[in-house]
Protein backbone atom coordinates (compact mmCIF):
# COMPACT_ATOMS: atom_id res chain seq x y z
CA UNK A 1 0.00 0.00 0.00
CA UNK A 2 2.78 2.26 0.93
CA UNK A 3 4.45 1.60 -2.42
CA UNK A 4 1.37 2.39 -4.49
CA UNK A 5 0.82 5.58 -2.56
CA UNK A 6 4.37 6.61 -3.20
CA UNK A 7 3.96 5.81 -6.86
CA UNK A 8 0.80 7.81 -7.06
CA UNK A 9 2.42 10.68 -5.25
CA UNK A 10 5.31 10.51 -7.67
CA UNK A 11 2.97 10.45 -10.64
CA UNK A 12 1.01 13.44 -9.46
CA UNK A 13 4.25 15.24 -8.73
CA UNK A 14 5.32 14.60 -12.31
CA UNK A 15 1.97 15.86 -13.57
CA UNK A 16 2.42 19.04 -11.57
CA UNK A 17 5.92 19.49 -12.90
CA UNK A 18 4.68 19.06 -16.45
CA UNK A 19 1.84 21.50 -15.84
CA UNK A 20 4.24 24.02 -14.37
CA UNK A 21 6.44 23.74 -17.42
CA UNK A 22 3.59 24.27 -19.89
CA UNK A 23 5.03 27.49 -21.26
CA UNK A 24 8.36 25.80 -21.78
CA UNK A 25 6.77 23.06 -23.88
CA UNK A 26 4.85 25.65 -25.86
CA UNK A 27 8.02 27.61 -26.55
CA UNK A 28 9.80 24.48 -27.72
CA UNK A 29 7.13 23.58 -30.28
CA UNK A 30 8.51 25.58 -33.24
CA UNK A 31 11.94 24.08 -32.76
CA UNK A 32 10.64 20.53 -32.37
CA UNK A 33 8.50 20.87 -35.49
CA UNK A 34 11.52 22.12 -37.41
CA UNK A 35 13.67 19.35 -35.98
CA UNK A 36 11.25 16.67 -37.08
CA UNK A 37 10.50 18.09 -40.52
CA UNK A 38 13.99 19.10 -41.54
CA UNK A 39 16.28 16.81 -39.57
CA UNK A 40 14.53 13.63 -38.58
CA UNK A 41 12.38 13.03 -41.65
CA UNK A 42 15.44 13.34 -43.96
CA UNK A 43 17.30 11.13 -41.51
CA UNK A 44 14.58 8.52 -41.88
CA UNK A 45 14.88 9.07 -45.62
CA UNK A 46 18.20 7.26 -45.41
CA UNK A 47 16.18 4.05 -45.79
CA UNK A 48 16.34 4.88 -49.48
CA UNK A 49 19.85 3.43 -49.36
CA UNK A 50 18.18 0.02 -49.18
CA UNK A 51 15.60 0.73 -51.89
CA UNK A 52 15.30 1.18 -55.62
CA UNK A 53 13.80 4.64 -55.93
CA UNK A 54 11.00 5.35 -58.33
CA UNK A 55 9.09 8.61 -58.44
CA UNK A 56 5.68 6.91 -58.34
CA UNK A 57 6.15 5.12 -55.02
CA UNK A 58 8.26 7.92 -53.58
CA UNK A 59 10.78 8.05 -50.80
CA UNK A 60 9.25 5.56 -48.40
CA UNK A 61 7.20 3.40 -50.77
CA UNK A 62 9.84 2.26 -53.24
CA UNK A 63 10.74 -1.47 -53.20
CA UNK A 64 13.65 -2.66 -51.12
CA UNK A 65 16.82 -4.10 -52.61
CA UNK A 66 18.77 -5.00 -49.48
CA UNK A 67 22.45 -4.18 -49.54
CA UNK A 68 22.72 -4.01 -53.31
CA UNK A 69 23.75 -0.36 -53.35
CA UNK A 70 26.44 -0.91 -50.77
CA UNK A 71 27.83 -3.84 -52.74
CA UNK A 72 27.93 -1.58 -55.74
CA UNK A 73 29.66 1.11 -53.70
CA UNK A 74 32.55 -1.19 -52.86
CA UNK A 75 32.80 -2.63 -56.35
CA UNK A 76 32.79 0.73 -58.16
CA UNK A 77 36.42 1.80 -58.63
CA UNK A 78 35.47 5.49 -58.79
CA UNK A 79 33.61 5.27 -55.49
CA UNK A 80 36.41 3.41 -53.76
CA UNK A 81 38.87 5.95 -55.09
CA UNK A 82 36.69 8.75 -53.74
CA UNK A 83 36.73 7.12 -50.30
CA UNK A 84 40.52 6.91 -50.28
CA UNK A 85 40.86 10.41 -51.70
CA UNK A 86 38.67 11.74 -48.91
CA UNK A 87 40.70 10.09 -46.16
CA UNK A 88 44.04 11.12 -47.65
CA UNK A 89 42.94 14.70 -48.24
CA UNK A 90 41.59 14.93 -44.68
CA UNK A 91 44.86 13.67 -43.25
CA UNK A 92 46.79 16.11 -45.41
CA UNK A 93 44.58 18.88 -44.16
CA UNK A 94 45.45 17.94 -40.60
CA UNK A 95 49.13 18.26 -41.45
CA UNK A 96 48.95 21.44 -43.53
CA UNK A 97 46.00 23.28 -42.05
CA UNK A 98 45.48 22.24 -38.46
CA UNK A 99 48.70 23.69 -36.94
CA UNK A 100 48.44 27.03 -38.77
CA UNK A 101 45.93 28.79 -36.48
CA UNK A 102 47.84 27.58 -33.41
CA UNK A 103 51.05 29.12 -34.69
CA UNK A 104 49.18 32.24 -35.71
CA UNK A 105 47.69 32.54 -32.23
CA UNK A 106 51.13 32.24 -30.65
CA UNK A 107 52.57 34.89 -32.95
CA UNK A 108 49.62 37.23 -32.48
CA UNK A 109 49.81 37.11 -28.69
CA UNK A 110 53.52 37.85 -28.83
CA UNK A 111 52.95 40.88 -31.01
CA UNK A 112 53.29 44.28 -29.41
CA UNK A 113 50.99 47.24 -29.78
CA UNK A 114 47.39 46.71 -28.80
CA UNK A 115 45.87 48.88 -31.49
CA UNK A 116 47.77 47.52 -34.45
CA UNK A 117 47.21 44.02 -33.15
CA UNK A 118 43.50 44.59 -33.20
CA UNK A 119 43.58 45.98 -36.73
CA UNK A 120 45.61 43.01 -37.91
CA UNK A 121 43.26 40.56 -36.25
CA UNK A 122 40.29 42.25 -37.87
CA UNK A 123 41.88 41.82 -41.28
CA UNK A 124 42.97 38.23 -40.72
CA UNK A 125 39.51 37.14 -39.59
CA UNK A 126 37.56 38.83 -42.35
CA UNK A 127 37.77 36.18 -45.12
CA UNK A 128 35.98 33.70 -42.85
CA UNK A 129 32.81 35.71 -43.36
CA UNK A 130 32.82 35.28 -47.11
CA UNK A 131 31.45 32.32 -49.02
CA UNK A 132 33.62 29.88 -50.93
CA UNK A 133 31.94 31.11 -54.10
CA UNK A 134 33.42 34.56 -53.50
CA UNK A 135 36.79 33.40 -52.19
CA UNK A 136 37.29 30.90 -55.00
CA UNK A 137 36.37 33.45 -57.63
CA UNK A 138 38.89 35.97 -56.30
CA UNK A 139 41.69 33.47 -55.80
CA UNK A 140 41.15 31.66 -59.10
CA UNK A 141 41.40 34.97 -60.92
CA UNK A 142 44.71 35.62 -59.16
CA UNK A 143 46.26 32.21 -59.68
CA UNK A 144 45.04 31.40 -63.18
CA UNK A 145 47.51 31.18 -66.02
CA UNK A 146 47.06 34.82 -66.98
CA UNK A 147 46.39 35.94 -63.43
CA UNK A 148 48.20 38.38 -61.20
CA UNK A 149 50.57 35.92 -59.56
CA UNK A 150 51.89 34.40 -62.77
CA UNK A 151 52.27 37.77 -64.46
CA UNK A 152 54.22 39.18 -61.52
CA UNK A 153 56.41 36.09 -61.59
CA UNK A 154 57.04 36.38 -65.29
CA UNK A 155 57.97 40.02 -64.78
CA UNK A 156 60.53 38.76 -62.30
CA UNK A 157 61.74 36.22 -64.83
CA UNK A 158 60.21 33.14 -63.20
CA UNK A 159 58.46 30.53 -65.32
CA UNK A 160 54.70 30.44 -64.90
CA UNK A 161 53.29 27.81 -62.59
CA UNK A 162 50.09 25.87 -63.39
CA UNK A 163 48.60 26.50 -59.93
CA UNK A 164 45.12 25.40 -60.91
CA UNK A 165 45.68 22.95 -63.76
CA UNK A 166 48.21 20.60 -62.23
CA UNK A 167 46.85 18.16 -59.69
CA UNK A 168 49.82 18.52 -57.33
CA UNK A 169 49.78 22.32 -57.36
CA UNK A 170 46.03 22.34 -57.13
CA UNK A 171 46.13 20.28 -53.99
CA UNK A 172 48.64 22.69 -52.48
CA UNK A 173 46.29 25.50 -53.47
CA UNK A 174 43.50 23.83 -51.51
CA UNK A 175 45.58 24.04 -48.34
CA UNK A 176 46.85 27.55 -49.04
CA UNK A 177 43.44 29.00 -49.83
CA UNK A 178 41.82 27.24 -46.88
CA UNK A 179 44.44 28.69 -44.56
CA UNK A 180 44.00 32.07 -46.19
CA UNK A 181 40.28 32.00 -45.49
CA UNK A 182 40.08 30.34 -42.09
CA UNK A 183 43.31 30.72 -40.13
CA UNK A 184 42.39 34.04 -38.52
CA UNK A 185 39.03 32.82 -37.38
CA UNK A 186 40.33 29.47 -36.16
CA UNK A 187 43.06 31.19 -34.14
CA UNK A 188 40.52 33.06 -31.99
CA UNK A 189 39.78 30.03 -29.84
CA UNK A 190 43.46 29.48 -29.18
CA UNK A 191 44.01 33.13 -28.37
CA UNK A 192 41.12 33.14 -25.94
CA UNK A 193 42.68 30.19 -24.14
CA UNK A 194 46.09 31.86 -24.10
CA UNK A 195 44.64 35.04 -22.61
CA UNK A 196 43.11 33.01 -19.79
CA UNK A 197 46.49 31.65 -18.68
CA UNK A 198 47.44 32.85 -15.21
CA UNK A 199 49.99 35.70 -15.69
CA UNK A 200 51.69 34.49 -12.52
CA UNK A 201 53.00 31.52 -14.48
CA UNK A 202 54.83 33.82 -16.85
CA UNK A 203 56.17 35.94 -14.00
CA UNK A 204 57.51 32.83 -12.30
CA UNK A 205 59.09 31.68 -15.54
CA UNK A 206 60.68 35.07 -16.04
CA UNK A 207 62.13 35.05 -12.53
CA UNK A 208 63.58 31.66 -13.38
CA UNK A 209 65.26 33.36 -16.32
CA UNK A 210 63.19 31.82 -19.12
CA UNK A 211 63.31 33.69 -22.41
CA UNK A 212 60.09 34.49 -24.23
CA UNK A 213 60.51 31.55 -26.58
CA UNK A 214 61.09 29.29 -23.60
CA UNK A 215 57.99 30.75 -21.94
CA UNK A 216 55.95 29.86 -25.03
CA UNK A 217 57.34 26.35 -24.95
CA UNK A 218 56.98 25.74 -21.22
CA UNK A 219 53.92 27.77 -20.29
CA UNK A 220 51.77 28.63 -23.30
CA UNK A 221 51.93 25.35 -25.21
CA UNK A 222 51.22 23.12 -22.21
CA UNK A 223 48.22 25.30 -21.43
CA UNK A 224 46.99 24.90 -24.99
CA UNK A 225 47.56 21.17 -25.12
CA UNK A 226 44.11 20.01 -23.93
CA UNK A 227 42.41 22.26 -26.48
CA UNK A 228 44.77 21.18 -29.25
CA UNK A 229 44.27 17.50 -28.56
CA UNK A 230 40.53 17.92 -28.33
CA UNK A 231 40.29 19.73 -31.63
CA UNK A 232 42.65 17.30 -33.29
CA UNK A 233 40.55 14.35 -32.23
CA UNK A 234 37.45 16.15 -33.45
CA UNK A 235 39.13 16.62 -36.81
CA UNK A 236 39.81 12.91 -36.99
CA UNK A 237 36.17 12.37 -36.13
CA UNK A 238 35.16 14.20 -39.31
CA UNK A 239 37.66 12.56 -41.59
CA UNK A 240 35.02 11.68 -44.17
CA UNK A 241 34.35 15.36 -44.82
CA UNK A 242 37.23 16.96 -46.64
CA UNK A 243 36.06 20.44 -47.62
CA UNK A 244 33.15 20.05 -50.02
CA UNK A 245 32.30 23.72 -50.63
CA UNK A 246 35.86 24.68 -51.35
CA UNK A 247 36.46 21.84 -53.80
CA UNK A 248 33.14 22.29 -55.56
CA UNK A 249 33.85 25.96 -56.21
CA UNK A 250 37.56 25.68 -56.99
CA UNK A 251 37.84 22.55 -59.10
CA UNK A 252 38.02 22.51 -62.88
CA UNK A 253 37.75 19.69 -65.39
CA UNK A 254 41.52 19.14 -65.49
CA UNK A 255 41.96 18.45 -61.79
CA UNK A 256 38.51 17.38 -60.67
CA UNK A 257 39.34 13.68 -60.78
CA UNK A 258 42.34 14.09 -58.47
CA UNK A 259 40.28 15.85 -55.80
CA UNK A 260 37.15 13.73 -56.12
CA UNK A 261 36.03 13.24 -52.51
CA UNK A 262 32.94 11.44 -51.30
CA UNK A 263 30.83 14.59 -51.17
CA UNK A 264 31.72 15.71 -54.67
CA UNK A 265 31.21 12.14 -55.88
CA UNK A 266 27.71 12.10 -54.43
CA UNK A 267 27.04 15.50 -55.96
CA UNK A 268 28.26 14.39 -59.37
CA UNK A 269 26.32 11.13 -59.50
CA UNK A 270 23.15 12.75 -58.18
CA UNK A 271 22.98 15.61 -60.66
CA UNK A 272 23.84 13.79 -63.85
CA UNK A 273 21.48 12.62 -66.57
CA UNK A 274 20.48 9.27 -65.06
CA UNK A 275 20.87 9.49 -61.31
CA UNK A 276 20.31 6.50 -59.08
CA UNK A 277 18.85 8.06 -55.95
CA UNK A 278 19.14 4.82 -53.98
CA UNK A 279 22.83 4.50 -54.73
CA UNK A 280 23.50 8.19 -54.01
CA UNK A 281 21.77 7.81 -50.67
CA UNK A 282 23.81 4.71 -49.88
CA UNK A 283 27.08 6.57 -50.49
CA UNK A 284 25.86 9.42 -48.28
CA UNK A 285 24.76 7.06 -45.56
CA UNK A 286 28.08 5.23 -45.66
CA UNK A 287 29.84 8.55 -45.15
CA UNK A 288 27.46 9.60 -42.38
CA UNK A 289 27.83 6.35 -40.44
CA UNK A 290 31.64 6.33 -40.60
CA UNK A 291 31.75 9.96 -39.48
CA UNK A 292 29.36 9.32 -36.63
CA UNK A 293 31.22 6.22 -35.45
CA UNK A 294 34.54 8.03 -35.55
CA UNK A 295 33.07 10.94 -33.66
CA UNK A 296 31.75 8.72 -30.90
CA UNK A 297 35.16 7.10 -30.70
CA UNK A 298 36.77 10.53 -30.62
CA UNK A 299 34.47 11.57 -27.80
CA UNK A 300 35.50 8.56 -25.74
CA UNK A 301 39.13 9.37 -26.44
CA UNK A 302 38.76 12.97 -25.34
CA UNK A 303 37.02 11.73 -22.22
CA UNK A 304 39.93 9.47 -21.41
CA UNK A 305 42.53 12.12 -22.16
CA UNK A 306 41.10 15.12 -20.41
CA UNK A 307 38.68 13.48 -18.00
CA UNK A 308 35.97 15.58 -19.54
CA UNK A 309 33.91 14.63 -22.53
CA UNK A 310 32.90 17.21 -25.08
CA UNK A 311 29.36 16.21 -24.50
CA UNK A 312 27.76 13.51 -22.43
CA UNK A 313 24.26 12.28 -22.01
CA UNK A 314 24.52 11.95 -18.26
CA UNK A 315 22.19 13.93 -16.09
CA UNK A 316 23.18 17.52 -15.62
CA UNK A 317 24.16 18.49 -12.17
CA UNK A 318 21.93 20.86 -10.33
CA UNK A 319 23.36 24.31 -10.64
CA UNK A 320 22.58 27.04 -8.26
Amino acid sequence: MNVTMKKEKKRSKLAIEIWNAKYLYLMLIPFVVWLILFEYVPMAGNVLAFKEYNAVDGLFGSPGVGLKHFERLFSTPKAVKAIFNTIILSLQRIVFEFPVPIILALITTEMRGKKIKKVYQTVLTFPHFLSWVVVSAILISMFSEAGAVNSVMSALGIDSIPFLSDSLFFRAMLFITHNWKEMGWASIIYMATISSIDPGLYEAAEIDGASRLKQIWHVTLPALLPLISMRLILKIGSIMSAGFGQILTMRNSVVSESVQILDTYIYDITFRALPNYGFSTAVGLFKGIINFALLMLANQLVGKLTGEKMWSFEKRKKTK
Partner: protein
Amino acid sequence: MAKLEQRKRKKFSKLDIVTFIIMTILVILIIVPFWSAIVISFSTNEYYINHRFSLWPGDFTLANYIALFSRGDGLLTAYGNTIWVSVIGTVGGMVVMTMAAYVFSRRFPGRRILFMITIFSMYFGGGLVPTYLNLKNLHLLNTHTGVIMLTLVSVSHIIIIMKGFEAVPKELEEAAKIDGAHDFQVFWKVMLPMNKPTLATYALFTFVDLWNNWYWPMLILTDSDKNLLQVYLRSIVNSASKMSGMAEGSGMGSFSMGIQMACILVVILPVMLIYPYVQKYFVKGIYVGSVKM
Protein backbone atom coordinates in the same frame (compact mmCIF):
# COMPACT_ATOMS: atom_id res chain seq x y z
CA MET B 1 45.57 40.68 -19.88
CA ALA B 2 46.80 44.05 -18.65
CA LYS B 3 49.23 42.30 -16.37
CA LEU B 4 50.37 40.15 -19.20
CA GLU B 5 50.95 43.24 -21.23
CA GLN B 6 53.07 44.74 -18.50
CA ARG B 7 55.25 41.79 -17.83
CA LYS B 8 57.53 41.78 -20.81
CA ARG B 9 57.36 45.25 -22.20
CA LYS B 10 60.33 47.46 -21.94
CA LYS B 11 62.17 47.67 -25.24
CA PHE B 12 61.84 46.10 -28.64
CA SER B 13 63.60 42.79 -28.91
CA LYS B 14 64.44 40.72 -31.98
CA LEU B 15 61.36 38.62 -31.34
CA ASP B 16 59.16 41.72 -31.45
CA ILE B 17 60.53 42.67 -34.83
CA VAL B 18 60.16 39.13 -36.21
CA THR B 19 56.54 38.82 -35.05
CA PHE B 20 55.74 42.22 -36.46
CA ILE B 21 57.21 41.32 -39.84
CA ILE B 22 55.43 37.96 -40.02
CA MET B 23 52.09 39.46 -39.04
CA THR B 24 52.49 42.30 -41.53
CA ILE B 25 53.23 39.86 -44.34
CA LEU B 26 50.16 37.80 -43.44
CA VAL B 27 47.96 40.88 -43.37
CA ILE B 28 49.28 41.97 -46.76
CA LEU B 29 48.59 38.49 -48.15
CA ILE B 30 44.99 38.78 -46.99
CA ILE B 31 44.49 42.28 -48.34
CA VAL B 32 46.18 41.91 -51.75
CA PRO B 33 43.54 39.68 -53.41
CA PHE B 34 40.74 42.04 -52.32
CA TRP B 35 42.67 45.08 -53.40
CA SER B 36 43.51 43.46 -56.71
CA ALA B 37 39.82 42.67 -57.22
CA ILE B 38 38.89 46.30 -56.50
CA VAL B 39 41.54 47.60 -58.90
CA ILE B 40 40.49 45.22 -61.69
CA SER B 41 36.85 46.17 -61.26
CA PHE B 42 37.71 49.84 -61.89
CA SER B 43 40.04 49.16 -64.81
CA THR B 44 39.48 48.98 -68.55
CA ASN B 45 40.17 45.89 -70.58
CA GLU B 46 43.19 47.43 -72.32
CA TYR B 47 44.74 48.35 -69.01
CA TYR B 48 44.07 44.93 -67.50
CA ILE B 49 45.66 43.05 -70.41
CA ASN B 50 48.89 44.95 -69.87
CA HIS B 51 48.70 45.12 -66.07
CA ARG B 52 47.38 41.88 -64.59
CA PHE B 53 48.36 43.21 -61.23
CA SER B 54 48.61 46.83 -60.28
CA LEU B 55 48.20 48.83 -57.12
CA TRP B 56 46.01 51.47 -58.70
CA PRO B 57 43.65 51.44 -61.68
CA GLY B 58 45.64 53.11 -64.44
CA ASP B 59 42.62 54.47 -66.25
CA PHE B 60 39.80 54.61 -63.76
CA THR B 61 36.44 53.61 -65.19
CA LEU B 62 33.00 52.64 -63.95
CA ALA B 63 32.32 50.71 -67.15
CA ASN B 64 32.41 47.30 -65.43
CA TYR B 65 29.84 48.35 -62.85
CA ILE B 66 27.64 49.92 -65.47
CA ALA B 67 27.91 46.77 -67.58
CA LEU B 68 27.16 44.61 -64.55
CA PHE B 69 24.00 46.48 -63.64
CA SER B 70 22.79 46.77 -67.22
CA ARG B 71 23.14 43.05 -67.96
CA GLY B 72 19.45 42.76 -67.19
CA ASP B 73 19.77 39.14 -66.14
CA GLY B 74 18.47 39.52 -62.65
CA LEU B 75 21.20 40.96 -60.46
CA LEU B 76 18.85 43.41 -58.78
CA THR B 77 16.17 40.75 -58.38
CA ALA B 78 18.74 38.45 -56.81
CA TYR B 79 19.86 41.27 -54.53
CA GLY B 80 16.34 41.95 -53.36
CA ASN B 81 15.65 38.24 -52.90
CA THR B 82 18.83 37.78 -50.88
CA ILE B 83 18.01 40.67 -48.57
CA TRP B 84 14.50 39.31 -48.10
CA VAL B 85 15.64 35.73 -47.45
CA SER B 86 18.43 36.83 -45.09
CA VAL B 87 16.25 39.15 -43.04
CA ILE B 88 13.32 36.73 -42.74
CA GLY B 89 15.65 33.82 -42.05
CA THR B 90 17.50 35.77 -39.36
CA VAL B 91 14.36 36.95 -37.59
CA GLY B 92 12.65 33.57 -37.82
CA GLY B 93 15.79 31.69 -36.87
CA MET B 94 16.46 33.89 -33.85
CA VAL B 95 12.90 33.48 -32.59
CA VAL B 96 13.06 29.69 -32.83
CA MET B 97 16.62 29.43 -31.54
CA THR B 98 16.32 31.77 -28.56
CA MET B 99 13.12 30.11 -27.39
CA ALA B 100 14.65 26.65 -27.73
CA ALA B 101 17.83 27.82 -26.00
CA TYR B 102 15.84 29.28 -23.11
CA VAL B 103 13.77 26.11 -22.71
CA PHE B 104 16.87 23.95 -22.70
CA SER B 105 18.43 26.18 -20.05
CA ARG B 106 15.52 25.31 -17.68
CA ARG B 107 14.81 22.06 -15.88
CA PHE B 108 11.59 20.27 -16.76
CA PRO B 109 10.42 16.70 -17.33
CA GLY B 110 11.68 15.38 -20.64
CA ARG B 111 14.51 17.85 -21.01
CA ARG B 112 17.20 15.21 -21.12
CA ILE B 113 15.69 13.13 -23.89
CA LEU B 114 14.76 16.19 -25.97
CA PHE B 115 18.26 17.57 -25.63
CA MET B 116 19.75 14.23 -26.62
CA ILE B 117 17.60 14.12 -29.74
CA THR B 118 18.69 17.65 -30.56
CA ILE B 119 22.39 16.94 -30.13
CA PHE B 120 22.14 13.75 -32.15
CA SER B 121 20.86 15.72 -35.13
CA MET B 122 24.12 17.67 -35.08
CA TYR B 123 26.16 14.60 -35.82
CA PHE B 124 23.94 12.53 -38.03
CA GLY B 125 21.41 13.47 -40.63
CA GLY B 126 19.91 12.82 -43.99
CA GLY B 127 22.27 13.14 -46.90
CA LEU B 128 21.87 15.07 -50.12
CA VAL B 129 19.17 12.91 -51.71
CA PRO B 130 16.92 12.39 -48.64
CA THR B 131 17.05 16.12 -47.90
CA TYR B 132 16.21 16.93 -51.49
CA LEU B 133 13.35 14.45 -51.69
CA ASN B 134 12.04 15.69 -48.35
CA LEU B 135 11.85 19.21 -49.74
CA LYS B 136 10.10 17.81 -52.78
CA ASN B 137 7.52 16.03 -50.60
CA LEU B 138 6.91 19.23 -48.65
CA HIS B 139 6.49 21.14 -51.95
CA LEU B 140 9.34 23.43 -50.99
CA LEU B 141 11.48 22.95 -54.10
CA ASN B 142 11.97 26.21 -55.94
CA THR B 143 10.77 28.27 -52.98
CA HIS B 144 12.53 30.71 -50.68
CA THR B 145 10.79 29.02 -47.77
CA GLY B 146 12.74 25.87 -48.55
CA VAL B 147 16.02 27.78 -48.56
CA ILE B 148 15.17 29.51 -45.29
CA MET B 149 14.02 26.32 -43.58
CA LEU B 150 17.23 24.45 -44.37
CA THR B 151 19.34 27.11 -42.65
CA LEU B 152 16.81 28.32 -40.09
CA VAL B 153 18.28 26.70 -37.00
CA SER B 154 21.82 25.89 -36.00
CA VAL B 155 21.99 23.60 -32.99
CA SER B 156 25.48 24.81 -32.07
CA HIS B 157 24.13 28.38 -31.92
CA ILE B 158 21.31 27.18 -29.65
CA ILE B 159 23.83 25.65 -27.27
CA ILE B 160 25.93 28.79 -27.07
CA ILE B 161 22.88 31.01 -26.53
CA MET B 162 21.71 28.51 -23.91
CA LYS B 163 24.97 28.94 -22.03
CA GLY B 164 24.35 32.68 -21.97
CA PHE B 165 20.90 32.12 -20.45
CA GLU B 166 22.33 29.74 -17.87
CA ALA B 167 24.78 32.41 -16.76
CA VAL B 168 21.99 34.83 -15.81
CA PRO B 169 21.78 34.98 -12.00
CA LYS B 170 18.94 32.86 -10.63
CA GLU B 171 17.83 35.68 -8.32
CA LEU B 172 16.61 37.74 -11.26
CA GLU B 173 14.42 34.94 -12.46
CA GLU B 174 13.12 34.24 -8.97
CA ALA B 175 12.30 37.89 -8.42
CA ALA B 176 10.35 37.95 -11.64
CA LYS B 177 8.52 34.77 -10.71
CA ILE B 178 7.57 36.20 -7.32
CA ASP B 179 6.10 39.13 -9.21
CA GLY B 180 3.91 36.59 -10.98
CA ALA B 181 5.78 36.23 -14.25
CA HIS B 182 5.48 32.92 -16.06
CA ASP B 183 8.24 31.28 -18.07
CA PHE B 184 7.57 33.15 -21.26
CA GLN B 185 7.61 36.50 -19.46
CA VAL B 186 10.88 35.60 -17.76
CA PHE B 187 12.28 34.79 -21.18
CA TRP B 188 10.98 37.98 -22.74
CA LYS B 189 11.62 40.46 -19.94
CA VAL B 190 14.69 39.05 -18.21
CA MET B 191 16.59 36.65 -20.41
CA LEU B 192 16.50 38.46 -23.76
CA PRO B 193 17.50 41.90 -22.40
CA MET B 194 20.24 40.36 -20.27
CA ASN B 195 21.81 38.65 -23.27
CA LYS B 196 21.63 41.41 -25.85
CA PRO B 197 25.30 41.25 -26.95
CA THR B 198 25.27 37.48 -27.45
CA LEU B 199 21.98 37.61 -29.29
CA ALA B 200 23.13 40.46 -31.51
CA THR B 201 26.27 38.51 -32.39
CA TYR B 202 24.41 35.37 -33.29
CA ALA B 203 21.79 37.26 -35.23
CA LEU B 204 24.61 38.75 -37.29
CA PHE B 205 26.26 35.35 -37.73
CA THR B 206 22.95 33.94 -38.90
CA PHE B 207 22.49 36.84 -41.29
CA VAL B 208 25.95 36.35 -42.78
CA ASP B 209 25.38 32.60 -43.09
CA LEU B 210 22.18 33.24 -44.99
CA TRP B 211 23.80 35.90 -47.14
CA ASN B 212 26.59 33.49 -48.07
CA ASN B 213 24.23 30.58 -48.63
CA TRP B 214 24.75 29.16 -52.12
CA TYR B 215 24.73 25.37 -52.16
CA TRP B 216 21.08 24.56 -51.51
CA PRO B 217 19.77 27.65 -53.28
CA MET B 218 21.77 26.50 -56.31
CA LEU B 219 20.16 23.07 -56.10
CA ILE B 220 16.55 23.94 -55.44
CA LEU B 221 15.87 27.39 -56.94
CA THR B 222 15.12 27.01 -60.64
CA ASP B 223 13.09 30.13 -61.49
CA SER B 224 15.37 33.00 -62.40
CA ASP B 225 13.13 35.47 -60.57
CA LYS B 226 13.83 33.57 -57.34
CA ASN B 227 17.59 33.57 -57.77
CA LEU B 228 19.93 34.54 -54.92
CA LEU B 229 23.11 36.59 -55.10
CA GLN B 230 25.70 33.89 -54.47
CA VAL B 231 24.14 31.66 -57.10
CA TYR B 232 24.06 34.60 -59.51
CA LEU B 233 27.74 35.29 -58.86
CA ARG B 234 28.61 31.64 -59.35
CA SER B 235 26.83 31.53 -62.68
CA ILE B 236 28.66 34.66 -63.84
CA VAL B 237 32.01 33.19 -62.82
CA ASN B 238 31.25 29.81 -64.39
CA SER B 239 30.05 31.21 -67.70
CA ALA B 240 33.14 33.45 -67.81
CA SER B 241 35.50 30.55 -67.21
CA LYS B 242 33.81 28.57 -69.98
CA MET B 243 34.46 31.40 -72.41
CA SER B 244 37.96 32.12 -71.16
CA GLY B 245 39.45 31.02 -74.48
CA MET B 246 37.50 33.66 -76.32
CA ALA B 247 38.30 37.32 -76.64
CA GLU B 248 37.55 39.26 -73.49
CA GLY B 249 35.61 42.46 -73.45
CA SER B 250 32.21 43.53 -74.52
CA GLY B 251 32.72 47.06 -75.70
CA MET B 252 32.44 50.29 -73.67
CA GLY B 253 35.68 49.35 -71.88
CA SER B 254 34.12 46.70 -69.70
CA PHE B 255 35.40 43.13 -69.77
CA SER B 256 34.53 39.76 -68.35
CA MET B 257 37.07 39.69 -65.52
CA GLY B 258 36.27 43.28 -64.59
CA ILE B 259 32.56 42.51 -64.43
CA GLN B 260 33.25 39.42 -62.32
CA MET B 261 35.28 41.41 -59.83
CA ALA B 262 32.67 44.17 -59.75
CA CYS B 263 30.04 41.55 -59.03
CA ILE B 264 32.11 40.07 -56.20
CA LEU B 265 32.48 43.47 -54.58
CA VAL B 266 28.78 44.22 -54.92
CA VAL B 267 28.00 40.85 -53.33
CA ILE B 268 30.34 41.21 -50.34
CA LEU B 269 29.56 44.86 -49.65
CA PRO B 270 26.89 44.21 -46.97
CA VAL B 271 29.14 41.72 -45.20
CA MET B 272 31.91 44.31 -45.16
CA LEU B 273 29.51 46.83 -43.67
CA ILE B 274 28.26 44.45 -40.98
CA TYR B 275 31.64 42.97 -40.18
CA PRO B 276 32.92 45.66 -37.77
CA TYR B 277 29.88 45.08 -35.55
CA VAL B 278 30.34 41.33 -35.53
CA GLN B 279 34.03 41.69 -34.94
CA LYS B 280 33.51 43.87 -31.88
CA TYR B 281 31.83 41.02 -30.05
CA PHE B 282 33.40 37.77 -31.07
CA VAL B 283 36.87 38.59 -29.80
CA LYS B 284 35.35 39.07 -26.37
CA GLY B 285 35.12 35.34 -26.18
CA ILE B 286 31.50 34.69 -26.91
CA TYR B 287 32.63 32.16 -29.41
CA VAL B 288 34.66 30.44 -26.74
CA GLY B 289 31.48 28.82 -25.53
CA SER B 290 31.69 26.61 -28.55
CA VAL B 291 35.04 25.17 -27.59
CA LYS B 292 33.10 22.54 -25.77
CA MET B 293 30.35 21.02 -27.75
